[in-house]
């Protein structure tokens, strides 16, 4: 059983060159921020280190932080420029019974995160969902295509805060 700050210390001592920080202010749980292009190596370490043994990726979810510049469009709608998209990883160790939350943030305009599909197989569909809903590109994912929306959906990523539904999809009217 390891506490979040002990896990943070282990991470920092093993990856001294990387900017790894912890946010303990969140009321629900401490969140460790790591760089998006290194999450796969950090994942392997968290999974295989004998003191950590995070063998289970409970959940992987995308988040639109909507912290960029909000621009009013001519039709009263809003679009967002700049800022970040994030991916959260909820890890659990079934043998040591401890948990941790990781976070990576990436630029909204070119959101690229290294895939952890090779570390935890669960991540395959979760990453496809985050790609489908937020347009986050997971580098080195074996099959990064839409999973929920139609494969030929070209109207953007529905869970982004500035998403606009199209008027028609294949001749079917979409709005109410």
């Amino acid at each position, binding site marked *: 059983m390891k506490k979040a700050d002990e896990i943070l210390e282990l991470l920092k001592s093993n990856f001294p060159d990387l900017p790894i920080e912890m946010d303990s202010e969140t009321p629900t749980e401490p969140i460790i921020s790591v760089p998006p292009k290194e999450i796969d190596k950090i994942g392997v370490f968290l999974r295989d280190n004998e003191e950590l043994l995070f063998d289970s990726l409970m959940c992987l979810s995308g988040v639109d932080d909507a912290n960029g510049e909000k621009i009013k469009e001519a039709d009263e709608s809003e679009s967002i420029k700049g800022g970040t998209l994030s991916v959260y990883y909820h890890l659990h160790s079934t043998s040591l019974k401890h948990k941790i939350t990781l976070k990576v943030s990436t630029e909204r305009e070119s959101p690229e995160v290294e895939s952890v599909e090779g570390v935890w197989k669960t991540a395959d569909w979760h990453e496809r969902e985050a790609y489908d809903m937020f347009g986050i590109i997971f580098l080195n994912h074996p099959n990064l295509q839409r999973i929920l929306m*139609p494969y030929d959906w070209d109207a953007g990523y529905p869970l982004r805060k500035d998403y606009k*539904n199209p008027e028609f999809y294949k001749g079917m009217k979409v709005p109410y």
Partner: protein
Amino acid sequence: MGLLDQEFSDSNIVITKAEDLLNWARLSSLWQLGFGLACCAIEMMATSASHYDFDRFGVIPRPSPRQSDIIIISGTVTLKMALRIKRLYEQMPDPKYIISMGSCSNCGGPYWEHGYHVLKGVDRVIPVDVYVPGCPPRPEALLEGLLKLQEKIRTESLSKKSA
């Protein structure tokens, strides 16, 4: 205008119009496409099961659209599924009927505003005969919908399809 009103009891003869006979045959064996979409499908299955017994009205689930007379749209119609529903409907032989079951397939239901993936009513892709309101409708409501459809078929005309 029941079919058996003009029955001669002693000689097993019934006098009726060909139209009435056809309509009676159609409405008495509405074979249903075995097709469910969401939570409404659970109620539809309950309607098929022994307690409510859809079969007493001649409704039997068929595994193929080519053997079906009726399709019950039982649940949320996503944009992805709408294209498949349209194809299934087109594969059914005439005469064919549609019951739209529940708020989702009637008009989008709870997804009417923010459901980026939901078709706001299945009648945007296929013609609906009977709408059954509810979220989901109880089996009694679905049975009522079926009886309404049967009434519709009873008054159909050979020269002009009204239902």
